[in-house]
């Protein structure tokens, strides 16, 4: 990887502070994090274990540790800490409502060149389906740091999806789990986005501004529990909602937002979801390349907004 993983670095810096302050914070990695965790390991004996390439055992271990009062982080990349051990997450972690934070580095096409096995594009939908689970996909490095601090201090099991590409944004408001952040205000239409792809949305919003279109941009770092108020306000105040996620079109952020609209009897005039069109990518490339290839980039977002506004 040529680019530094800024979101991961911020996560680790914050986690290091948390581990120093609380002996019960324990980090498990399934043999990933070369050049990342060495200092942490040295600094915190008894708070770091490389469990080997064994995600099922890692998650079971996490449950055992958490039952004894530890605040456990399981770490790996892509789909390994989630889909490989999904039943351990469901039965061992969620059913027992244990304080375990599952961290996946490499959301969406972060590891685009590594191939389909490393494309993390169904995680939000799958984990969102589990009771007792909080699902967070930070949009910026700042959000990633705030998220890990909040998740470790909250009870229950959670999933933290770290991205390679990030939006360079920070909120003046406090980061609160389940509360969306308004990164740009506008009244023409609302873009609701989760994850580092907020970067594309911010670029699109600036381009639209030049054309006299003022969009509202909502960063929805917490996909579950989702911020219903922000969605309802967007539908009522701006008329249209466009969701953007680096994830399959089914069941993720767009699905969650549409569920809220229907359940709350609040129907935007126009609604569109941008995401992967229910497919795997056998094509490889950088995160930016694949976003363009699969119509997730700023230019596609700009075009989509214009089409929606014509119908509004």
């Amino acid at each position: 990887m040529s680019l530094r993983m800024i979101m991961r670095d911020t996560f680790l810096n914050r986690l290091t502070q948390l581990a120093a302050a609380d002996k019960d914070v324990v980090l498990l990695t399934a043999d990933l994090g070369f050049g990342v965790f060495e200092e942490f390991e040295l600094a915190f004996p008894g708070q770091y274990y490389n469990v080997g390439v064994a995600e099922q055992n890692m998650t079971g271990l996490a449950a055992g540790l958490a039952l004894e009062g530890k605040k456990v982080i399981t770490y790996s990349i892509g789909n390994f800490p989630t889909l490989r051990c999904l039943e351990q997450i469901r039965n061992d972690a969620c059913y027992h409502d244990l304080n375990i934070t599952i961290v996946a580095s490499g959301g969406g096409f972060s590891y685009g060149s590594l191939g389909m096995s490393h494309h993390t594009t169904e995680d939000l939908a799958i984990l969102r389906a589990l009771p007792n689970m909080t699902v967070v996909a930070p949009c910026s490095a700042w959000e990633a740091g705030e998220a890990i601090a909040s998740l470790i201090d909250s009870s229950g099991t959670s999933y933290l999806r770290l991205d390679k590409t990030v939006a360079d944004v920070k909120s003046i408001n406090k980061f609160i789990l389940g509360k969306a952040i308004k990164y740009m205000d506008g009244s023409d239409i609302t873009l609701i986005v989760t994850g580092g792809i907020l970067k594309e949305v911010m670029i699109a919003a600036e381009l639209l501004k030049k054309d006299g279109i003022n969009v509202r941009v909502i960063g929805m770092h917490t996909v579950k529990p989702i911020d219903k108020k922000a969605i309802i306000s967007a539908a009522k105040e701006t008329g249209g909602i466009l969701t953007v996620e680096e994830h399959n079109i089914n069941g993720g952020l767009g699905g969650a937002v549409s569920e809220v609209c229907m359940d709350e009897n609040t129907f935007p005039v126009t609604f569109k979801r941008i995401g992967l069109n229910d497919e795997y990518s056998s094509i490889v490339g950088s995160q930016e390349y694949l976003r363009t290839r699969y119509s997730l980039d700023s230019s596609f977002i700009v075009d989509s907004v214009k089409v929606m506004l014509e119908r509004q």
Partner: protein
Amino acid sequence: MTEELALKIRKHAVNMTSTGGSSHIGSILSIADVLAVLYGSVMNYKADNPKWHGRDRFILSKGHAGAGVYAALAESGFMSEDKLKTHYQDGSDLSGHVSHKGIPGVEFSTGSLGHGLPVATGMALAAKINKEKHSVYVLMSDGECDEGSNWEAALFAPHHKLDNLVVIIDRNKLQSIHSTEDTLALEPFVDKWQAFGWNVLDVNGHDHDQLIKACNSKVVGKPLCIVANTTKGKGVSFMENEVLWHYRSPQGKELEAALNELENDNA
């Protein structure tokens, strides 16, 4: 005393699976002696304070034999015997597969195989980190050893010298359809655990003295694996070594015959 407890567990289990019309009586009878030894002799616990921190922990990984644990807990003072009558009934929290919710004394819910050992290993690791003295016991089935997750934990526990962890394997050599050896051969079974770095003891899983001695044979720096050689359906002759009784619920004359046999053989 533990023999008496084993008989009570067996009788409860026969009645519970009959009333509930539920499966797995063969699996429960197979481990009744192990449960009796653990709850009647080996483990430290306080029934009136189930979360007492110094207690030994127990996880039933073969969760389908949950009725056996419920019976052991009721006989050990964690809940009333009356509650056992609700097993498998509408609205009950005594589920077919062992559940911790609402059941004092159950540490962990299982039901899907291959989950108990990794979790028990995590509990044992926590005790080591915290420098605590209690032990963690996990009871698995032999068929369950088909699950790869167990072998991940089997690598981890000796690597981290978790000598506070005790695995007891119910080696009745029968699994869901055929024998373990016809399905996915486990032998040489003891050698496998030894090769993974465990202190392994091969005992008669119905001999209480052997089981108690084995549980007290911990070796510093190594987790303990007790291969408890058992008979599925033990104590009811027509259920012994019959896969059918993994599924069938004893009713009418079968129920009567099973209870009579248990009573008379132990009179």
